[in-house]
């Protein structure tokens, strides 16, 4: 009795033969079911191993921070942009690829305020990115899509945009006007236009770094310019 409690009898010797076969099948079944579960687990592991690089490939374009893309590129001679005028300038996007065709081209509005003061606006409306047009007579940028309007210094004048025009970082090297261009400017990828060293290659020493930083900040920052137009 006590032995039965501690050590229950297995379906053993005195059971009928059919039952023995069933028991054996059941034992084998649990083994196969276990093996099947094992195979599922193996496939889950291999699947994950396979999926990680695939997802990595898919998400590749999203992995780069907007501030990491872009480069300084020349827009042309400073003398091409007369003082007091706002002119359209074209350039080839420094981040374009071999198969971008016409879409590798880009345009911007260059406003020469004085001899050494410039503003370069992205052509993309701050609302939804349509190309704004400059009207020199009324000193306004107008957007054809939803009628956003901006003053000559890029401030929002009216319409749906919630901010002023996007601005490129500018630099003067000799007689050449450079801008820093990377991402297509949108509400959040505009970060690419924030201050950055002019030299693209990592500076060899901290002295170089300081020099590079000073070169890029020599040019008036958008913050400094925003006071120039009384609101």
């Amino acid at each position: 009795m006590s032995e039965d409690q501690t050590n229950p009898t297995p379906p053993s010797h005195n059971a009928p033969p059919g039952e023995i076969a069933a028991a054996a099948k059941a034992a084998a079944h649990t083994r196969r079911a276990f093996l099947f579960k094992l195979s599922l687990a193996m496939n889950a592991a291999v699947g994950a191993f396979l999926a990680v690089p695939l997802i990595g490939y898919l998400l590749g374009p999203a992995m780069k921070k907007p501030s990491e893309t872009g480069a300084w590129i020349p827009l042309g001679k400073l003398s091409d942009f007369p003082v007091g005028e706002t002119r359209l300038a074209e350039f080839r996007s420094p981040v374009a690829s071999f198969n971008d065709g016409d879409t590798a081209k880009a345009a911007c509005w260059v406003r020469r305020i004085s001899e050494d003061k410039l503003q370069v606006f992205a052509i993309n409306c701050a609302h939804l990115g349509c190309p704004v047009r400059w009207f020199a007579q009324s000193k306004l940028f107008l957007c054809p899509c939803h009628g956003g309007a901006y003053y000559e210094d890029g401030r929002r004048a009216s319409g749906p945009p919630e901010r002023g025009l996007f601005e490129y970082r500018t630099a003067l090297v000799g007689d050449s006007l450079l801008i820093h261009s990377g991402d297509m400017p949108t509400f959040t990828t505009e970060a690419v236009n924030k201050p950055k060293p002019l030299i693209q290659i990592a500076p060899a020493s901290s002295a170089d770094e300081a020099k590079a930083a000073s070169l890029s900040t020599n040019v008036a920052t958008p913050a400094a310019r925003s006071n120039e137009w009384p609101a």
Partner: protein
Amino acid sequence: MASLKDRARTAGSSLYDWVELRLGLLKPLTETATHPTPENSASWLYVFGSAASVLLVLQIVTGILLALAYSPSANEAWNSLAQLNHVIPLGWYLRALHGWGSDFMIAIVLLHMVQVFLFGSYKFPREMTWIVGVGLLLLTLGMAFTGQVMRFDQDAYWGLGIGASISSHVPIVGPYLVHMLLGGPIIGGATLARFFTLHVFVIPGILLGGVGLHVWMVLRHGVSDWPMPGRIVSRSTYQKQYHELTASTGIPFVPDAAWKDGVFAAALLLAVMACAFFFGPFGPGGAPDPTIIQTAPKPDFAFLWIYALLAFLPPSIETPVLLVAPVIGIAGLLVLPLFAGEGERHWSRRPIAVLLVSVIAVTLGIFTHLGTYTPWSPVMSAWTSAPIPAKLLANRTPLQRQGALVLQDKQCRNCHAIAGSGGQRGPALDMIASRMTEDQIIRQVLQGGGNMPAYGNALSPSETKALMQFLMTLRSNDLPPAIDSSTKLTHPGESQTTQPTPAQKNP
């Protein structure tokens, strides 16, 4: 000796048996096609679902044929479309069929949805059929948007810019979303490649699978019976009632009900072909060169209402509305059958359903109509192309005429119409002097406000003076000039401070 006819019949029957023994599909398919369906469901209003599938097949066939010539590369896409339009024989017709087929498909899918909604056919036990159907609608719209990008022209380029700009407003992941959408930092070859992949592989694959599921569930639950006022859907009794109805009034779907689907599908295909033949393909518009800024981008017809909405949303609520409203709208469609899965089906007992459809249809209609002529957009060329009518300049002083020149030169006409030509962003100026006093106009012009930029820095005092002289002549002869009614109260002794110049008699 058996006749030739009998022999042929025997041979045909043994071929059928040979194939069916191996394939095992012919008999079940025949049984499915001829399954009994309630007689009242054989209606001309029940043909939109099959019509949408027919159009899907048309889109797949024409799409495959277009892929023979289309080059999904930003270098070549636009030129390959031009080649299809002008060089490859019948290429224009294939493009037209595919483009018109897409518009028709959206229309038919929407009609199908409205019909199912108004007939309460989404109720038990067809809730999942509806939910999958909502997915199919979104996939269809996804095909339309990605298809617009395939037509790689200016509209496609700037449309992508609008998509990227909207994505960039998503909190936290905004810039990453933009990069995912564009496949890189700018709109370019990578962007077209991923939209091509979506348009040709990903969305059609999911769409076909979804249609399979949708049709499977239609067959499983049967075509919904015609709704009757007072015939309530209840989870406990509906299926029994439906089976009784089918048993008593059932007719074989093929041919007794399906002939209407067939006739409608043929008429629809003919309509697509006629539109394609007479109206031709859509675009492509100008080359996708972002340095060509003389463009007014516009989305395709199906998205015009969104384009219009974007012009009217105030900046402060635009982002929340853009990001939250679609989520609420889609979630509402998805959960609709879950909380309204029982009850009345007939539209006469469901006033809210009818009201919803009417309000949404009118709203979409109005916004789409506005999108066709974009009254909010400045007319960029109006200042040089829309002259001031001569009768408004007759018998005017030199200063007034100078003012008319200022009005033209300062691009006022881009936003303000005179005599029906010019922009509609601001009010028409024909009667402005009868509505506003000189002081009010000067304040409005120099300081801006409302939706108008300030012109204080773009107008010299002499230009302002001349402009005012002209504007104050703009009222018809039978209307008095506007007066500031508060002047009497604030300056009781004085008359109107600035007497408007009386409009002179027109010749």
